[in-house]
């Protein structure tokens, strides 16, 4: 009895095993239009409406579990996304920073090329500190005597002259700004050729003036003022500034055509927005034109 049961069980098991193997063989052996494929399509077409109905009926349950799943997923992804967001924000800031610095460096390069300043061995530096006074008298840059910078070297940025080096250490320098009042820069009207001295008056950074312009020169607002360079042919009287570096633009002229005429300038370089500057370390031809 027991043996017969076992035999019957084994037979049943073999039949069950043969069933999928047979189906598998037939399924692979026939074309897509074969009997089994047709049966499969028929069963599918019967099951499909049931599935559709079940899908509709089970949608609330699916949404509920889906909500749990989404919430768990969202929680686990939150920190990942926060990190990603932080990373992207940092990259965006770095990118815009790089674009801004690039624009400044490009402007410096353009000025170097246009003014022939490449021969002055310009050292590019970053402004790392600024005097907190309203005068914006000095800035600190991150290059010093290690790079050949000496006191008195002119400092420019992409807009034009900003000042000169007043103090030098090995790896940093203090730059006195033209808006600070301590500097007197030989300057000339670019169009007319009248020479004078640009210096900030007692009124502060907005009181930059072009002084000592002879009255025979008519100066109009909007005229460009550049560095004059060395005017004297004698040695020992060389200017610290190469000729032709933009300083600023004439904003107004008081008492024009008189000995007391006052020519007010606005510098091209904004002392509040200094970031990348260049120090011209070598005078070219005694800064003569």
């Amino acid at each position, binding site marked *: *009895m*027991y043996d017969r*049961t076992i035999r019957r*069980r084994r037979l*049943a*098991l073999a039949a*069950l*095993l043969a*069933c*999928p*193997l*047979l*189906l*598998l*063989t037939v*399924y*692979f052996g026939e074309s897509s239009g074969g009997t*089994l494929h047709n*049966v*499969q*399509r028929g*069963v*599918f077409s019967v*099951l499909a409406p*049931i*599935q*559709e109905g*079940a*899908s509709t009926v*089970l949608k609330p*349950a*699916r949404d509920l*579990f*889906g909500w*749990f*799943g989404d919430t*768990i*997923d969202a929680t*686990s992804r939150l920190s990942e996304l926060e990190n990603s967001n932080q990373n992207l924000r940092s990259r965006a800031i770095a990118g815009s920073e790089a674009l801004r610095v690039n624009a400044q460096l490009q402007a410096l390069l353009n000025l170097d090329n246009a003014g022939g300043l490449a021969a002055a061995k310009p050292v590019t530096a970053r402004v790392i500190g600024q005097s907190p006074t309203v005068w914006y008298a000095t800035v600190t840059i991150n290059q010093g005597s290690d790079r050949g910078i000496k006191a008195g070297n002119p400092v420019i940025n992409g807009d034009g002259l900003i000042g000169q080096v007043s103090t030098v250490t090995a790896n940093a320098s203090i730059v006195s700004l033209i808006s600070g009042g301590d500097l007197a820069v030989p300057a000339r009207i670019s169009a007319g050729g009248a020479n004078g001295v640009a210096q900030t008056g007692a009124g502060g950074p907005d009181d930059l003036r072009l002084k000592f312009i002879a009255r025979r020169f008519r100066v109009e607002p909007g005229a460009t003022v550049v560095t004059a360079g060395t005017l004297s042919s004698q040695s020992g009287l060389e200017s610290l500034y190469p000729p032709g570096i933009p300083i600023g633009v004439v904003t107004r002229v008081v008492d024009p055509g008189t000995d007391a005429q006052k020519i007010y300038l606005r510098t091209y370089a904004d002392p509040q927005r200094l970031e990348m500057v260049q120090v011209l370390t070598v005078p070219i031809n005694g800064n003569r034109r």
Partner: protein
Amino acid sequence: MNLNYRSLVWRLALICLVTVVFQVAAVSQIKILGVNADLVPLVAASVGLIVGSLPGAAFGVSIGLLLDFALVETVGVASLILLAIGYAAGRLRELRDPQGAIVPLLVGAAATAAAQIGLSLLTFLLGQRVPLGWPLLLELLGTVAFNAVIAIPVYLILRRCLLAALPEDPRRRRRRAYTTGGLSPLSKS
């Protein structure tokens, strides 16, 4: 065919249909932590544990066929795997008769792993592209873990559904486990 046996067959057929429809229409579309549950191997293993090896194997073949038809996949692949799962679970119940509360969980996890690996392997052997590698392994582990969590409730629901149709109360089966002529509760009837 007596009344109990007929009742059992109807119940198993209903479980088979409901499981496949529920799996395809709902469970497969719910992902938690990137994985979803696979009820089919759980149900096949649970049925094997409850009703024995041969009915388990038959149920495995049936549910596998229905799944292949419902998903329009290669007919016979799922049947073959689920046959093995149903039969193995039934044999475990017949030979060892494990009584621990954690047994359905372990059997469910093992059945899920076997189903996943077996299906991937068989699909690969049949010449279809299978994403073998870490993604498959992670998916497999996730599904096994998920199924392990729901294995006990699934087992208890199925047991409740099938208990009335079984010839004897399975709670008393320990005393007559692996006795002559009683390989499964069905063979008593």
